[in-house]
Protein backbone atom coordinates (compact mmCIF):
# COMPACT_ATOMS: atom_id res chain seq x y z
CA UNK A 1 0.00 0.00 0.00
CA UNK A 2 1.52 3.28 -1.09
CA UNK A 3 0.31 6.76 -0.28
CA UNK A 4 -0.12 9.01 -3.31
CA UNK A 5 -1.58 12.01 -1.48
CA UNK A 6 0.17 15.39 -1.71
CA UNK A 7 -0.55 18.84 -0.30
CA UNK A 8 -0.45 22.17 -2.04
CA UNK A 9 -1.12 24.77 0.68
CA UNK A 10 -4.67 23.95 1.86
CA UNK A 11 -5.34 21.56 -1.01
CA UNK A 12 -5.24 17.87 -0.26
CA UNK A 13 -4.79 16.12 -3.57
CA UNK A 14 -5.44 12.37 -3.70
CA UNK A 15 -2.44 12.09 -6.05
CA UNK A 16 0.05 14.52 -7.66
CA UNK A 17 -1.54 14.44 -11.13
CA UNK A 18 -3.47 17.50 -12.32
CA UNK A 19 -4.45 18.54 -15.83
CA UNK A 20 -3.10 21.74 -17.37
CA UNK A 21 -5.47 24.58 -18.21
CA UNK A 22 -6.47 24.69 -21.86
CA UNK A 23 -5.78 21.01 -22.47
CA UNK A 24 -8.67 19.41 -20.66
CA UNK A 25 -11.64 21.67 -21.42
CA UNK A 26 -13.95 21.52 -18.43
CA UNK A 27 -13.46 17.82 -17.77
CA UNK A 28 -16.52 16.36 -19.44
CA UNK A 29 -14.77 16.23 -22.82
CA UNK A 30 -12.76 13.33 -21.36
CA UNK A 31 -15.63 11.43 -19.73
CA UNK A 32 -15.62 8.73 -22.43
CA UNK A 33 -11.98 7.91 -21.73
CA UNK A 34 -11.30 8.23 -18.01
CA UNK A 35 -12.93 8.69 -14.64
CA UNK A 36 -12.05 12.36 -14.11
CA UNK A 37 -12.50 11.89 -10.36
CA UNK A 38 -9.46 9.60 -10.33
CA UNK A 39 -7.17 12.58 -10.94
CA UNK A 40 -5.65 14.68 -8.17
CA UNK A 41 -7.50 17.57 -9.72
CA UNK A 42 -8.28 19.46 -12.88
CA UNK A 43 -7.45 23.01 -13.88
CA UNK A 44 -10.15 24.19 -16.23
CA UNK A 45 -9.80 26.41 -19.28
CA UNK A 46 -8.88 30.05 -18.55
CA UNK A 47 -11.70 32.40 -17.57
CA UNK A 48 -11.43 36.11 -18.30
CA UNK A 49 -13.62 38.98 -17.13
CA UNK A 50 -15.20 39.45 -20.55
CA UNK A 51 -16.20 37.05 -23.28
CA UNK A 52 -13.27 36.45 -25.66
CA UNK A 53 -13.53 34.91 -29.13
CA UNK A 54 -9.79 34.31 -29.19
CA UNK A 55 -7.43 34.47 -32.16
CA UNK A 56 -8.31 33.77 -35.80
CA UNK A 57 -7.68 30.32 -37.29
CA UNK A 58 -5.11 28.81 -37.81
CA UNK A 59 -4.38 28.46 -34.13
CA UNK A 60 -2.00 25.51 -34.10
CA UNK A 61 1.10 24.08 -35.72
CA UNK A 62 2.65 20.69 -35.11
CA UNK A 63 6.36 20.79 -34.23
CA UNK A 64 8.83 17.97 -33.52
CA UNK A 65 7.56 16.26 -30.34
CA UNK A 66 5.23 19.15 -29.65
CA UNK A 67 2.98 21.84 -30.96
CA UNK A 68 2.47 25.59 -31.06
CA UNK A 69 -0.85 27.07 -30.07
CA UNK A 70 -2.30 30.55 -30.39
CA UNK A 71 -5.81 29.95 -29.15
CA UNK A 72 -6.01 33.36 -27.48
CA UNK A 73 -7.93 32.51 -24.29
CA UNK A 74 -11.27 31.85 -26.00
CA UNK A 75 -13.91 31.67 -23.28
CA UNK A 76 -17.35 33.10 -22.52
CA UNK A 77 -16.25 35.20 -19.52
CA UNK A 78 -16.74 34.94 -15.76
CA UNK A 79 -20.48 35.66 -15.84
CA UNK A 80 -21.15 32.70 -18.14
CA UNK A 81 -18.74 30.53 -16.14
CA UNK A 82 -20.63 31.13 -12.89
CA UNK A 83 -24.07 30.51 -14.43
CA UNK A 84 -23.41 27.71 -16.90
CA UNK A 85 -20.09 25.98 -16.36
CA UNK A 86 -19.69 25.97 -12.57
CA UNK A 87 -22.88 23.91 -11.97
CA UNK A 88 -21.49 21.18 -14.23
CA UNK A 89 -18.26 21.03 -12.19
CA UNK A 90 -20.12 20.16 -8.98
CA UNK A 91 -20.16 16.48 -9.94
CA UNK A 92 -16.39 16.19 -9.50
CA UNK A 93 -15.16 15.19 -6.05
CA UNK A 94 -11.52 16.03 -6.65
CA UNK A 95 -9.80 19.42 -6.71
CA UNK A 96 -11.32 21.82 -9.21
CA UNK A 97 -9.00 24.73 -9.88
CA UNK A 98 -9.98 27.69 -12.04
CA UNK A 99 -7.37 29.32 -14.26
CA UNK A 100 -7.77 33.09 -14.20
CA UNK A 101 -6.49 35.25 -17.04
CA UNK A 102 -7.00 38.84 -18.19
CA UNK A 103 -5.40 41.84 -19.83
CA UNK A 104 -5.68 44.34 -16.96
CA UNK A 105 -5.20 44.09 -13.19
CA UNK A 106 -8.84 45.16 -12.76
CA UNK A 107 -9.94 42.27 -14.97
CA UNK A 108 -7.98 39.70 -12.95
CA UNK A 109 -9.43 41.11 -9.71
CA UNK A 110 -12.99 40.91 -11.04
CA UNK A 111 -12.61 37.24 -11.97
CA UNK A 112 -10.79 36.33 -8.73
CA UNK A 113 -13.47 38.02 -6.63
CA UNK A 114 -16.23 36.05 -8.31
CA UNK A 115 -14.29 32.77 -8.12
CA UNK A 116 -13.79 33.40 -4.40
CA UNK A 117 -17.53 32.97 -3.84
CA UNK A 118 -17.69 29.58 -5.58
CA UNK A 119 -17.39 26.92 -2.87
CA UNK A 120 -16.52 24.07 -5.17
CA UNK A 121 -13.56 25.91 -6.71
CA UNK A 122 -10.74 25.01 -4.29
CA UNK A 123 -8.10 27.26 -5.76
CA UNK A 124 -7.31 29.59 -8.62
CA UNK A 125 -4.29 29.52 -10.87
CA UNK A 126 -3.28 32.99 -12.02
CA UNK A 127 -2.10 32.96 -15.62
CA UNK A 128 0.38 35.81 -15.75
CA UNK A 129 1.64 35.03 -19.25
CA UNK A 130 -1.14 37.24 -20.63
CA UNK A 131 -0.15 40.46 -22.35
CA UNK A 132 -0.73 43.54 -20.20
CA UNK A 133 -2.53 45.95 -22.50
CA UNK A 134 -1.57 48.89 -20.30
CA UNK A 135 2.14 48.06 -20.63
CA UNK A 136 2.18 47.79 -24.42
CA UNK A 137 1.20 44.14 -24.43
CA UNK A 138 4.18 42.92 -22.43
CA UNK A 139 3.24 39.87 -20.42
CA UNK A 140 2.51 40.45 -16.71
CA UNK A 141 4.85 37.63 -15.83
CA UNK A 142 7.89 39.02 -17.57
CA UNK A 143 8.73 41.63 -14.97
CA UNK A 144 8.82 41.56 -11.18
CA UNK A 145 6.83 44.78 -10.76
CA UNK A 146 3.91 43.67 -12.92
CA UNK A 147 3.94 40.09 -11.60
CA UNK A 148 3.91 41.50 -8.08
CA UNK A 149 1.17 44.00 -8.85
CA UNK A 150 -1.26 41.48 -10.26
CA UNK A 151 -0.55 38.88 -7.54
CA UNK A 152 -0.98 41.45 -4.78
CA UNK A 153 -4.22 42.81 -6.23
CA UNK A 154 -5.70 39.32 -6.54
CA UNK A 155 -4.45 38.33 -3.08
CA UNK A 156 -6.56 41.16 -1.60
CA UNK A 157 -9.78 39.66 -2.93
CA UNK A 158 -9.07 35.92 -2.97
CA UNK A 159 -9.06 33.97 0.32
CA UNK A 160 -8.33 30.43 -0.83
CA UNK A 161 -5.25 28.78 -2.33
CA UNK A 162 -3.66 31.14 -4.87
CA UNK A 163 -1.36 29.47 -7.40
CA UNK A 164 0.58 31.71 -9.79
CA UNK A 165 1.49 30.17 -13.15
CA UNK A 166 4.84 31.46 -14.34
CA UNK A 167 5.97 32.32 -17.85
CA UNK A 168 9.30 30.80 -18.97
CA UNK A 169 9.87 33.60 -21.47
CA UNK A 170 12.01 35.55 -19.02
CA UNK A 171 15.69 35.97 -18.27
CA UNK A 172 15.39 34.86 -14.66
CA UNK A 173 12.33 32.86 -13.65
CA UNK A 174 13.61 32.54 -10.07
CA UNK A 175 13.28 36.26 -9.44
CA UNK A 176 9.72 36.25 -10.76
CA UNK A 177 8.90 33.27 -8.52
CA UNK A 178 10.36 35.04 -5.48
CA UNK A 179 8.43 38.20 -6.35
CA UNK A 180 5.05 36.46 -6.50
CA UNK A 181 5.87 34.51 -3.34
CA UNK A 182 6.48 37.82 -1.53
CA UNK A 183 3.28 39.22 -3.03
CA UNK A 184 1.25 36.45 -1.40
CA UNK A 185 1.15 33.47 -3.75
CA UNK A 186 0.48 30.18 -1.92
CA UNK A 187 2.13 28.14 -4.69
CA UNK A 188 3.67 28.56 -8.14
CA UNK A 189 3.10 26.42 -11.21
CA UNK A 190 5.59 26.34 -14.07
CA UNK A 191 6.15 26.41 -16.94
CA UNK A 192 3.58 27.94 -19.24
CA UNK A 193 4.36 27.66 -22.98
CA UNK A 194 7.60 28.85 -24.57
CA UNK A 195 7.27 31.48 -27.28
CA UNK A 196 7.87 29.92 -30.71
CA UNK A 197 7.09 30.15 -34.42
CA UNK A 198 6.39 27.92 -37.43
CA UNK A 199 6.74 28.72 -41.13
CA UNK A 200 5.19 26.90 -44.12
CA UNK A 201 8.08 26.76 -46.57
CA UNK A 202 5.90 25.93 -49.59
CA UNK A 203 3.44 28.76 -49.00
CA UNK A 204 6.20 31.03 -47.64
CA UNK A 205 3.95 32.16 -44.81
CA UNK A 206 3.72 31.74 -41.04
CA UNK A 207 1.55 28.80 -40.04
CA UNK A 208 -0.18 30.58 -37.14
CA UNK A 209 -2.54 33.50 -37.73
CA UNK A 210 -0.68 35.34 -34.94
CA UNK A 211 2.74 34.45 -36.40
CA UNK A 212 4.11 33.40 -32.99
CA UNK A 213 2.55 31.08 -30.43
CA UNK A 214 3.18 28.93 -27.37
CA UNK A 215 5.27 25.75 -27.64
CA UNK A 216 4.30 22.75 -25.54
CA UNK A 217 4.85 19.00 -25.49
CA UNK A 218 7.80 16.70 -24.82
CA UNK A 219 10.19 19.06 -26.64
CA UNK A 220 9.99 21.58 -23.78
CA UNK A 221 10.50 19.12 -20.93
CA UNK A 222 14.23 19.78 -20.38
CA UNK A 223 13.64 23.52 -20.09
CA UNK A 224 10.68 23.02 -17.75
CA UNK A 225 12.58 20.57 -15.56
CA UNK A 226 15.50 22.97 -15.23
CA UNK A 227 13.21 25.87 -14.28
CA UNK A 228 11.28 23.79 -11.75
CA UNK A 229 14.54 22.73 -10.13
CA UNK A 230 15.82 26.31 -9.98
CA UNK A 231 12.59 27.72 -8.57
CA UNK A 232 12.01 24.93 -6.06
CA UNK A 233 15.42 25.61 -4.54
CA UNK A 234 14.63 29.30 -4.14
CA UNK A 235 11.03 29.49 -2.86
CA UNK A 236 9.43 28.07 0.27
CA UNK A 237 5.97 27.67 -1.24
CA UNK A 238 5.04 24.48 -3.11
CA UNK A 239 5.88 24.17 -6.81
CA UNK A 240 3.67 22.47 -9.40
CA UNK A 241 5.64 21.19 -12.39
CA UNK A 242 4.39 21.48 -15.99
CA UNK A 243 6.10 20.85 -19.33
CA UNK A 244 5.98 17.89 -21.66
CA UNK A 245 4.98 15.33 -19.04
CA UNK A 246 3.83 12.21 -20.88
CA UNK A 247 4.82 9.25 -18.66
CA UNK A 248 5.05 8.42 -14.97
CA UNK A 249 8.82 8.67 -15.26
CA UNK A 250 8.49 12.26 -16.52
CA UNK A 251 6.22 13.08 -13.58
CA UNK A 252 8.64 11.56 -11.09
CA UNK A 253 11.52 13.58 -12.56
CA UNK A 254 9.60 16.75 -11.81
CA UNK A 255 8.85 15.60 -8.26
CA UNK A 256 12.54 14.80 -7.73
CA UNK A 257 13.38 18.28 -9.06
CA UNK A 258 11.23 19.77 -6.31
CA UNK A 259 7.64 19.79 -7.51
CA UNK A 260 4.92 18.68 -5.09
CA UNK A 261 2.50 17.98 -7.91
CA UNK A 262 2.47 18.06 -11.70
CA UNK A 263 0.17 18.99 -14.57
CA UNK A 264 -0.32 16.97 -17.74
CA UNK A 265 -1.17 19.07 -20.78
CA UNK A 266 -0.42 18.34 -24.41
CA UNK A 267 -0.07 14.60 -23.72
CA UNK A 268 -3.86 14.50 -23.26
CA UNK A 269 -4.29 15.23 -26.99
CA UNK A 270 -2.29 12.23 -28.12
CA UNK A 271 -3.63 9.93 -25.39
CA UNK A 272 -6.72 11.07 -23.46
CA UNK A 273 -5.89 8.35 -20.94
CA UNK A 274 -2.34 9.64 -20.27
CA UNK A 275 -3.24 11.01 -16.82
CA UNK A 276 -4.57 7.77 -15.35
CA UNK A 277 -1.67 5.83 -16.84
CA UNK A 278 0.73 8.25 -15.13
CA UNK A 279 -1.01 7.75 -11.78
CA UNK A 280 -0.74 3.97 -12.14
CA UNK A 281 2.90 4.31 -13.19
CA UNK A 282 3.77 6.42 -10.15
CA UNK A 283 2.20 3.81 -7.91
CA UNK A 284 4.19 1.10 -9.66
CA UNK A 285 7.43 3.07 -9.26
CA UNK A 286 6.84 3.50 -5.52
CA UNK A 287 6.21 -0.21 -5.12
CA UNK A 288 9.30 -1.15 -7.14
CA UNK A 289 11.50 1.20 -5.11
CA UNK A 290 9.81 0.24 -1.83
CA UNK A 291 8.87 3.84 -1.11
CA UNK A 292 5.70 4.07 0.94
CA UNK A 293 4.78 7.70 0.34
CA UNK A 294 5.06 9.74 -2.85
CA UNK A 295 5.95 12.83 -0.77
CA UNK A 296 9.36 11.24 -0.17
CA UNK A 297 10.14 11.89 -3.86
CA UNK A 298 9.56 15.64 -3.63
CA UNK A 299 12.92 17.31 -3.94
CA UNK A 300 14.52 13.90 -3.60
CA UNK A 301 17.15 14.51 -6.26
CA UNK A 302 20.58 13.37 -5.08
CA UNK A 303 23.33 15.70 -6.18
Amino acid sequence: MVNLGVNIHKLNLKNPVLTASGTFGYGEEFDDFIDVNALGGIIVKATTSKHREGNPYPRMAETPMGMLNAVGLQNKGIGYFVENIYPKLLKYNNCIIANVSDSTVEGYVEVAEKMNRLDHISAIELNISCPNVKEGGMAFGTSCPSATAVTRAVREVYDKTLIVKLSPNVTNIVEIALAVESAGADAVSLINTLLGMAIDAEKRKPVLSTITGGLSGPAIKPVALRMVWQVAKAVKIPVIGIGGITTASDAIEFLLAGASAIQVGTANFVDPQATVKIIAGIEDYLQRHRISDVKQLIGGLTI
Partner: protein
Amino acid sequence: MKKYILNFKILTNQALNYNHNLLELECNEPLPVMVPGQFAEVRVDGSVNTYLRRPFSIHRVNPERNSIHLLIKSVGEGSLTLANLKAKATVNIMLPLGNGFPIEENGDVLLVGGGCGVAPLWFLADQLKKKGNEISMLIGGRSAKDILLADNYAEFGKVYISTEDGSQGEPGMVTVHSILKQDKLPFTAIYCCGPDGMMKAVSHIAEKQGIPCLVSLENTMACGIGACLCCVVDTKQGNRCVCTDGPVFSSLELKGWSAETEVGCSLDK
Protein backbone atom coordinates in the same frame (compact mmCIF):
# COMPACT_ATOMS: atom_id res chain seq x y z
CA MET B 1 -21.91 8.70 -29.52
CA LYS B 2 -19.25 7.26 -27.26
CA LYS B 3 -15.61 7.71 -28.28
CA TYR B 4 -12.98 4.99 -28.03
CA ILE B 5 -9.23 4.53 -28.45
CA LEU B 6 -8.70 1.23 -30.25
CA ASN B 7 -6.05 -0.74 -32.08
CA PHE B 8 -6.71 -1.67 -35.68
CA LYS B 9 -4.83 -3.95 -38.06
CA ILE B 10 -4.36 -3.14 -41.76
CA LEU B 11 -6.26 -5.66 -43.91
CA THR B 12 -5.68 -4.09 -47.31
CA ASN B 13 -3.91 -1.04 -48.74
CA GLN B 14 -5.09 -0.13 -52.24
CA ALA B 15 -3.23 2.57 -54.20
CA LEU B 16 -5.90 4.57 -56.04
CA ASN B 17 -3.50 6.85 -57.87
CA TYR B 18 -0.07 8.39 -57.36
CA ASN B 19 -1.00 10.07 -54.08
CA HIS B 20 -4.15 8.44 -52.72
CA ASN B 21 -4.49 5.14 -50.87
CA LEU B 22 -7.55 3.36 -49.55
CA LEU B 23 -6.84 1.48 -46.34
CA GLU B 24 -9.11 -1.14 -44.82
CA LEU B 25 -8.48 -1.61 -41.10
CA GLU B 26 -9.91 -4.34 -38.87
CA CYS B 27 -10.67 -3.44 -35.27
CA ASN B 28 -9.25 -5.57 -32.45
CA GLU B 29 -12.46 -5.03 -30.48
CA PRO B 30 -16.06 -4.82 -31.72
CA LEU B 31 -16.44 -1.70 -33.83
CA PRO B 32 -18.12 1.22 -32.05
CA VAL B 33 -21.33 2.72 -33.38
CA MET B 34 -20.57 5.52 -35.84
CA VAL B 35 -22.37 7.61 -38.43
CA PRO B 36 -21.41 9.14 -41.81
CA GLY B 37 -19.47 12.37 -41.58
CA GLN B 38 -17.64 11.34 -38.43
CA PHE B 39 -13.89 11.00 -38.44
CA ALA B 40 -11.01 9.18 -36.80
CA GLU B 41 -7.87 10.62 -35.17
CA VAL B 42 -5.04 8.32 -36.23
CA ARG B 43 -1.75 8.01 -34.41
CA VAL B 44 1.32 7.71 -36.67
CA ASP B 45 4.19 6.10 -34.83
CA GLY B 46 7.88 6.20 -35.63
CA SER B 47 8.73 9.87 -36.10
CA VAL B 48 9.15 12.91 -33.87
CA ASN B 49 7.52 14.90 -36.65
CA THR B 50 4.22 13.02 -36.36
CA TYR B 51 3.61 13.69 -32.68
CA LEU B 52 -0.09 14.56 -32.91
CA ARG B 53 -2.84 12.35 -34.29
CA ARG B 54 -4.11 13.00 -37.82
CA PRO B 55 -7.83 13.28 -38.64
CA PHE B 56 -9.35 11.22 -41.46
CA SER B 57 -13.02 10.86 -42.46
CA ILE B 58 -14.51 7.44 -41.98
CA HIS B 59 -15.02 6.41 -45.59
CA ARG B 60 -16.82 3.14 -44.99
CA VAL B 61 -17.84 0.79 -42.20
CA ASN B 62 -18.05 -2.94 -42.82
CA PRO B 63 -19.78 -4.65 -39.87
CA GLU B 64 -19.26 -8.19 -41.22
CA ARG B 65 -15.50 -7.66 -41.42
CA ASN B 66 -15.49 -5.47 -38.27
CA SER B 67 -13.53 -2.96 -40.35
CA ILE B 68 -13.42 0.65 -41.46
CA HIS B 69 -11.95 2.22 -44.58
CA LEU B 70 -9.87 5.40 -44.55
CA LEU B 71 -8.96 7.37 -47.68
CA ILE B 72 -5.44 8.76 -47.30
CA LYS B 73 -4.09 11.57 -49.44
CA SER B 74 -0.30 11.79 -49.08
CA VAL B 75 0.43 15.41 -48.25
CA GLY B 76 3.13 15.12 -45.61
CA GLU B 77 5.17 12.76 -43.48
CA GLY B 78 2.22 11.43 -41.46
CA SER B 79 -0.08 10.64 -44.36
CA LEU B 80 2.82 9.22 -46.39
CA THR B 81 3.68 6.84 -43.53
CA LEU B 82 0.07 5.64 -43.36
CA ALA B 83 -0.09 5.27 -47.14
CA ASN B 84 2.93 2.96 -47.00
CA LEU B 85 1.63 0.66 -44.26
CA LYS B 86 1.49 -3.02 -45.15
CA ALA B 87 -1.11 -5.63 -44.22
CA LYS B 88 -1.02 -6.64 -40.53
CA ALA B 89 0.51 -3.32 -39.40
CA THR B 90 -1.14 -1.99 -36.22
CA VAL B 91 -2.65 1.47 -36.08
CA ASN B 92 -4.01 3.16 -32.94
CA ILE B 93 -7.16 5.15 -33.64
CA MET B 94 -9.46 7.39 -31.60
CA LEU B 95 -13.02 7.32 -32.95
CA PRO B 96 -15.77 8.10 -33.78
CA LEU B 97 -15.35 11.87 -33.55
CA GLY B 98 -17.45 14.77 -34.71
CA ASN B 99 -21.15 15.31 -35.30
CA GLY B 100 -21.77 13.46 -38.57
CA PHE B 101 -24.37 14.13 -41.27
CA PRO B 102 -28.03 13.92 -40.26
CA ILE B 103 -29.58 10.93 -42.05
CA GLU B 104 -33.11 11.85 -43.00
CA GLU B 105 -35.51 10.78 -45.69
CA ASN B 106 -35.36 13.77 -48.02
CA GLY B 107 -36.21 12.30 -51.36
CA ASP B 108 -33.78 13.16 -54.15
CA VAL B 109 -30.42 14.18 -52.80
CA LEU B 110 -27.15 15.26 -54.41
CA LEU B 111 -23.73 14.43 -52.98
CA VAL B 112 -20.84 16.54 -54.29
CA GLY B 113 -17.22 15.53 -53.72
CA GLY B 114 -14.07 17.34 -54.84
CA GLY B 115 -10.81 15.40 -54.97
CA CYS B 116 -10.31 13.51 -51.70
CA GLY B 117 -13.49 15.20 -50.43
CA VAL B 118 -15.25 12.07 -51.66
CA ALA B 119 -13.90 10.37 -48.50
CA PRO B 120 -16.96 10.74 -46.20
CA LEU B 121 -19.47 10.38 -49.02
CA TRP B 122 -19.50 6.58 -49.50
CA PHE B 123 -20.74 5.94 -45.95
CA LEU B 124 -23.16 8.86 -46.38
CA ALA B 125 -24.56 7.56 -49.68
CA ASP B 126 -24.92 4.09 -48.16
CA GLN B 127 -26.93 5.32 -45.17
CA LEU B 128 -29.01 7.82 -47.15
CA LYS B 129 -29.93 5.11 -49.67
CA LYS B 130 -30.94 2.74 -46.86
CA LYS B 131 -33.14 5.54 -45.50
CA GLY B 132 -35.03 5.64 -48.81
CA ASN B 133 -33.35 8.55 -50.58
CA GLU B 134 -32.60 8.68 -54.32
CA ILE B 135 -28.87 9.37 -54.65
CA SER B 136 -27.08 11.43 -57.29
CA MET B 137 -23.35 11.88 -56.97
CA LEU B 138 -21.16 14.57 -58.57
CA ILE B 139 -17.42 14.05 -58.35
CA GLY B 140 -14.93 16.71 -59.40
CA GLY B 141 -11.18 16.86 -59.85
CA ARG B 142 -8.41 18.48 -61.86
CA SER B 143 -8.16 15.62 -64.34
CA ALA B 144 -9.24 11.99 -64.81
CA LYS B 145 -6.51 10.63 -62.51
CA ASP B 146 -7.85 12.80 -59.66
CA ILE B 147 -11.35 11.33 -59.86
CA LEU B 148 -11.46 8.83 -57.02
CA LEU B 149 -13.63 5.77 -56.55
CA ALA B 150 -16.28 6.78 -59.12
CA ASP B 151 -17.08 3.09 -59.77
CA ASN B 152 -17.69 2.45 -56.08
CA TYR B 153 -20.42 5.09 -55.98
CA ALA B 154 -22.29 3.69 -58.98
CA GLU B 155 -24.15 1.19 -56.75
CA PHE B 156 -26.02 4.06 -55.07
CA GLY B 157 -27.28 5.93 -58.10
CA LYS B 158 -26.23 8.11 -60.98
CA VAL B 159 -22.63 9.35 -60.89
CA TYR B 160 -21.67 12.57 -62.70
CA ILE B 161 -18.10 13.67 -63.26
CA SER B 162 -16.39 17.03 -63.80
CA THR B 163 -12.72 17.46 -64.62
CA GLU B 164 -11.09 20.87 -65.02
CA ASP B 165 -9.13 19.68 -68.06
CA GLY B 166 -12.08 17.80 -69.56
CA SER B 167 -10.25 14.45 -69.57
CA GLN B 168 -13.28 12.76 -68.00
CA GLY B 169 -16.93 13.75 -67.74
CA GLU B 170 -17.84 17.39 -68.37
CA PRO B 171 -15.07 19.98 -68.58
CA GLY B 172 -14.74 22.57 -65.82
CA MET B 173 -15.43 22.71 -62.11
CA VAL B 174 -18.40 20.99 -60.51
CA THR B 175 -20.34 24.24 -60.37
CA VAL B 176 -20.60 24.40 -64.16
CA HIS B 177 -21.64 20.77 -64.55
CA SER B 178 -25.02 20.48 -66.24
CA ILE B 179 -26.52 18.81 -63.17
CA LEU B 180 -25.92 21.99 -61.13
CA LYS B 181 -26.77 24.42 -63.93
CA GLN B 182 -30.45 23.47 -63.97
CA ASP B 183 -32.91 26.34 -63.35
CA LYS B 184 -34.72 24.23 -60.80
CA LEU B 185 -32.52 21.66 -59.15
CA PRO B 186 -34.52 18.47 -58.51
CA PHE B 187 -32.90 17.93 -55.10
CA THR B 188 -34.27 18.34 -51.60
CA ALA B 189 -30.81 18.45 -50.01
CA ILE B 190 -27.18 18.78 -51.10
CA TYR B 191 -24.24 17.26 -49.20
CA CYS B 192 -20.79 18.51 -50.05
CA CYS B 193 -17.17 17.80 -49.19
CA GLY B 194 -14.03 19.12 -50.84
CA PRO B 195 -11.92 22.29 -51.03
CA ASP B 196 -13.50 25.28 -49.27
CA GLY B 197 -13.85 27.25 -52.51
CA MET B 198 -15.77 24.40 -54.13
CA MET B 199 -18.06 23.93 -51.15
CA LYS B 200 -18.77 27.66 -50.95
CA ALA B 201 -19.63 27.84 -54.66
CA VAL B 202 -21.94 24.79 -54.43
CA SER B 203 -23.60 26.22 -51.32
CA HIS B 204 -24.36 29.45 -53.16
CA ILE B 205 -26.17 27.53 -55.88
CA ALA B 206 -28.14 25.67 -53.19
CA GLU B 207 -28.91 28.85 -51.28
CA LYS B 208 -30.26 30.63 -54.34
CA GLN B 209 -32.74 27.81 -54.86
CA GLY B 210 -33.60 27.42 -51.18
CA ILE B 211 -32.07 23.95 -50.94
CA PRO B 212 -30.37 23.03 -47.65
CA CYS B 213 -26.66 22.42 -48.14
CA LEU B 214 -24.55 20.52 -45.62
CA VAL B 215 -20.78 20.82 -45.88
CA SER B 216 -17.97 18.92 -44.20
CA LEU B 217 -15.02 21.06 -43.11
CA GLU B 218 -11.42 20.21 -42.40
CA ASN B 219 -9.30 22.36 -40.05
CA THR B 220 -5.94 21.54 -38.50
CA MET B 221 -6.61 20.10 -35.08
CA ALA B 222 -4.85 18.79 -32.00
CA CYS B 223 -7.16 17.02 -29.53
CA GLY B 224 -10.09 16.19 -31.83
CA ILE B 225 -12.49 16.17 -28.88
CA GLY B 226 -13.33 19.82 -28.29
CA ALA B 227 -10.91 20.48 -25.44
CA CYS B 228 -8.11 22.56 -26.99
CA LEU B 229 -10.09 25.00 -29.20
CA CYS B 230 -7.48 24.96 -31.98
CA CYS B 231 -9.71 23.89 -34.90
CA VAL B 232 -12.35 26.63 -34.74
CA VAL B 233 -14.39 27.99 -37.63
CA ASP B 234 -16.26 31.28 -37.46
CA THR B 235 -20.02 30.78 -37.48
CA LYS B 236 -22.98 33.06 -36.91
CA GLN B 237 -22.89 31.94 -33.24
CA GLY B 238 -19.17 32.68 -32.92
CA ASN B 239 -16.25 30.26 -33.01
CA ARG B 240 -17.17 26.58 -33.17
CA CYS B 241 -14.84 23.55 -33.06
CA VAL B 242 -14.76 21.65 -36.35
CA CYS B 243 -13.93 18.47 -34.38
CA THR B 244 -17.01 18.56 -32.15
CA ASP B 245 -19.64 21.02 -33.40
CA GLY B 246 -18.63 19.84 -36.89
CA PRO B 247 -17.13 18.72 -39.16
CA VAL B 248 -20.58 18.90 -40.72
CA PHE B 249 -22.20 22.34 -40.79
CA SER B 250 -25.10 23.87 -42.65
CA SER B 251 -23.51 26.28 -45.14
CA LEU B 252 -25.83 29.01 -43.87
CA GLU B 253 -24.31 28.76 -40.37
CA LEU B 254 -20.81 29.66 -41.57
CA LYS B 255 -19.68 33.29 -41.47
CA GLY B 256 -18.83 34.64 -44.89
CA TRP B 257 -20.33 31.68 -46.76
CA SER B 258 -23.65 33.24 -47.63
CA ALA B 259 -24.16 34.17 -51.30
CA GLU B 260 -25.03 37.76 -50.29
CA THR B 261 -21.70 38.37 -48.55
CA GLU B 262 -19.37 36.61 -50.94
CA VAL B 263 -18.02 38.65 -53.84
CA GLY B 264 -16.03 35.86 -55.41
CA CYS B 265 -14.64 32.49 -54.37
CA SER B 266 -11.09 31.37 -54.67
CA LEU B 267 -10.52 27.64 -54.87
CA ASP B 268 -7.52 27.87 -52.55
CA LYS B 269 -8.04 28.06 -48.77
